[in-house]
């Protein structure tokens, strides 16, 4: 009797099983070439022959086999099926998967992955909210095609009217003091994905789309660099004005930015200080060495090693002091002409942080970016990804209502992100969050999906951490990166934003809004009583 080995990895433990139909296979080799994870390989099997005429009792048959390995295992990305001319191969989800258990048992290490949380235990609040106030009769709906709409939102510290230090001279208001910088931007921001987290082609496509939307389509969208620097040439160009430069606890890329500053011809759109991110709150950034390509090393000024941003900004005595110092220095660096904002992971404590910033007498904070738990990430420990964080909707609402309580709504614009478009309706999610009090939203996951990301929220692919992204989006391997067509991705991004623009107007029109309905929660209803109570919006059934 053959011995059965239990204590090692088996095919049945893997999250995806390769289903291969030898009768359809022409042995072209495309599937094995396409698999960035080396999860399949060509092999020869010895089979018994049933032919009486043949002298040989066995024969060798060429087949495709699945790797059973902790490193080279199938992520279900589906590239093999995509390239197979005959439909001979595909990955099937293994409902009895116990890979992450075996991984931990063998490696004595925390299981890491990229992409997004795969638990989805909480359901989607935004899908239970509808735009329920439709103007009819006395307050007519607007016409999304015929009427004009303004989709712009302030980004920067907005002062209360009585703090503007206006003077009246000859019936005209005149400014008497320098006021904090405020930009008027599109209410969707391309979220902060660094060069390194994504491939240079993906990053370039986002930058091209940003410039095109601004300069050709008249949509003043901004893109945040992520914590990984920015190409010097772009920084010195006129396109820098569309970029929000991110600084986080690793300060990656800032050496180059500082050196290039004397040669900059335009101020950036803003500075975003990242304190935390929604997908893995409490963790710092994580770029595994496999993704630290040569050009990433150059931009960031780092060796090829795992790059970890510390979970907190280090200060002498307190994080508050450290953050305050950073805000002041960032404000001063651009002569107080560039809005400086902060990004935090949505958390039970978000309202306290927001309250403090609102009450700060120096008006140093020009935007509050709240990132919810359904956000994506390039790499994280699975336990953080699946078990930490706070849903975005209620926390955004809490912050807005905290500002209302102080009579200071709008003073620090709120931007919300994390899982937007998860069920396919990005514009609707954005619109609802704006009605609940957001000035705008930011997204990274939608950009990746538009670019061709094959991952999803139920365990498909989610291998951004490996550098082996089969779509070339989160990859740093040259061959994989080349799969991504920069111009095509840029074009799709532009198209998607144009579609979003139409859809936002299609939601603004029926509620009779020609400007962004920031805080217009009266336009929303929910079919869930708990959500109604929690968000203070009408319940409908």
């Amino acid at each position: 009797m053959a011995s059965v080995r239990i204590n090692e990895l088996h095919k049945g433990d893997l999250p995806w099983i390769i289903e291969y139909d030898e009768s359809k296979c022409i042995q072209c080799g495309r599937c094995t070439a396409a698999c960035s994870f080396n999860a399949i390989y060509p092999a020869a099997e010895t089979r018994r022959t049933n032919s009486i005429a043949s002298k040989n009792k066995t024969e060798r048959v060429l087949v495709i086999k699945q790797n059973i390995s902790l490193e080279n295992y199938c992520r279900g990305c589906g590239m093999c099926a995509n390239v197979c001319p005959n439909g001979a191969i595909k990955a099937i989800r293994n409902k009895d998967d116990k890979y992450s258990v075996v991984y931990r048992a063998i490696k004595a290490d925390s299981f890491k992955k990229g992409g997004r949380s795969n638990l989805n235990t909480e359901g989607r609040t935004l899908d239970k909210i509808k735009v329920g106030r439709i103007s009819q009769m006395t307050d007519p709906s607007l016409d999304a095609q015929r009427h004009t709409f303004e989709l712009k939102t302030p980004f920067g510290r907005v002062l209360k009217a009585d703090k503007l230090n206006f003077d009246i001279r000859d019936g005209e208001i005149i400014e008497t003091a320098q006021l904090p910088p405020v930009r008027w931007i599109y209410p969707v921001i391309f979220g902060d994905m660094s060069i390194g987290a994504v491939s240079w082609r993906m990053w370039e496509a986002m930058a091209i789309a940003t410039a095109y939307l601004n300069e050709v389509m008249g949509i003043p969208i901004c893109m945040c660099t992520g914590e990984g620097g920015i190409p010097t040439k772009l920084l010195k160009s006129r396109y820098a004005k569309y970029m929000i430069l991110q600084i986080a606890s690793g300060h990656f890329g800032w050496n180059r930015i500082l050196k290039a500053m004397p040669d900059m011809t335009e101020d950036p759109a803003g500075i975003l200080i990242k304190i935390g991110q929604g997908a893995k709150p409490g963790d710092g950034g994580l770029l595994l060495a496999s993704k630290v390509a040569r050009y990433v090393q150059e931009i960031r000024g780092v060796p090829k090693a795992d790059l970890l941003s510390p979970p907190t900004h280090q200060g002498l005595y307190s994080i508050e002091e450290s953050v305050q110092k950073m805000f002041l220095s960032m404000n001063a660096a651009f002569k107080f002409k560039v809005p400086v904002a902060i990004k935090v992971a949505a958390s039970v404590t978000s309202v306290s942080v927001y309250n403090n910033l609102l009450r700060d007498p120096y008006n140093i904070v020009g935007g509050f970016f709240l990132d919810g738990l359904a956000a994506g990430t390039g790499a994280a420990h699975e336990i953080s990804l699946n078990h930490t964080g706070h849903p975005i909707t209620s926390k955004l609402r809490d912050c807005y209502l905290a500002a209302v309580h102080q009579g200071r709504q709008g003073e620090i614009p709120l931007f919300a992100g994390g899982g937007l478009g998860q069920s396919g309706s990005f514009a609707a999610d954005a619109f609802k969050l704006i009605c609940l009090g957001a000035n705008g939203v930011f997204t990274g996951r939608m950009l990746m999906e538009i670019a061709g990301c094959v991952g999803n929220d139920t365990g498909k692919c989610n291998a951004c951490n490996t550098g082996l992204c089969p779509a070339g989006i989160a990859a740093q391997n040259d061959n994989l990166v080349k799969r991504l067509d920069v111009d095509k991705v840029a074009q799709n991004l532009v198209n998607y934003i144009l579609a979003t623009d139409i859809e936002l107007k299609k939601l603004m029109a029926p509620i009779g809004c020609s400007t962004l309905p920031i805080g217009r929660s009266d336009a929303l209803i929910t079919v869930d009583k708990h959500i109604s109570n929690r968000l203070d919006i009408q319940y409908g059934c």
Partner: protein
Amino acid sequence: MCRIGAIKSKSKFHPSVALKLMRSQQEGHDDSGFAFVMQDMGGIFENYKDLPLLSMAATVEGTRLAEDILREIGFSRVMQWSPNINNRKGLKIEAMPNYIFEVLQYPKSYKHATKQEKEELLIDTSIRLRKTLDEISAGFIYSFWPDTLTLKEIGSPRDIGTYFDLWEENKDLTSSIITAQCRQNTNYDIVRYAAHPFFLEGYTGLVNGENTFYEKNKFYQQKLYKGYIGFESDSQCLLYTLHYMNKILKWPLKYFKHIITPLEYDEIIKREDKEILLRIKASLSHLEINGPNTLLAVTPDKELMCVCDSKKLRPVVIGRNENTVIMTSEVEGINDLLPNRDITKDIYPNERETIIVRNDLTVERWPQ
């Protein structure tokens, strides 16, 4: 849809003129109410212009409570006027037991008080009276301010006119400005306070429209000033915004339009005053209005004002002769009162202008 009207004249006139102005616009009525505010009083109020005039409708208990509070604060009655009530059967009116219009003397301790201190006393007293009467549903404080008389009632405008004997001209009850609406706010509960015109500290506002930014406006305004209370109507928000801008921020009237219907960013950046306008747009974004609206207003300087929403979704017309200017929803009303005017001088305001009627009745059109 509401119909609203504002009349300003060089000579004093009786509220019957306002009733006649609104009569031909009755398609917009639904027999739900009638309300008017008189400012720059004549007749028997002519000699009391500097003293506060209380306009109140109350039960017997409410009247007693209000009088007690006024006495306690130190106010003393100088003069009281009561309308000539014609309570015949069959009138469609939900009348209150008492209608009080009385001129009061400030407390003795205010003998040397500044204008600002006196105004503060009046608003504080108004709020206290209103709160007290609200608690036991005993009445309504419509205005408590010098040179201003307000009446609001539920019912048919025609019958309300008959009940208060307002159809007959009467030299005792006149003023040079009357703003009026022949309707209650029927969107919500029928509440006397919800009827236009609204009045606060010398500012009067009445609106034909739906302010779809009501909740945004309300959330912001309720923290701005103690006098911003009630919010029984979304239109009240426009009055509070006017008051906040002109009285509290002390900004000139021309900036009002830039608050309620700010220009689009692309238009602003072409202008010389772009820095100011962008600041206003950002800082007061919660006071922006959306939806169809026409606002008629009276300022403490006794000037009339008219602005529309940014898409001009509600009608308004201004007609005039040498002696009178009328702003109202439909031209029939003006045709009834000023049939011989030069109609080529009628103004149909556009969505990007502010109309001001000065005290000499010159009409100015300010582009936004």
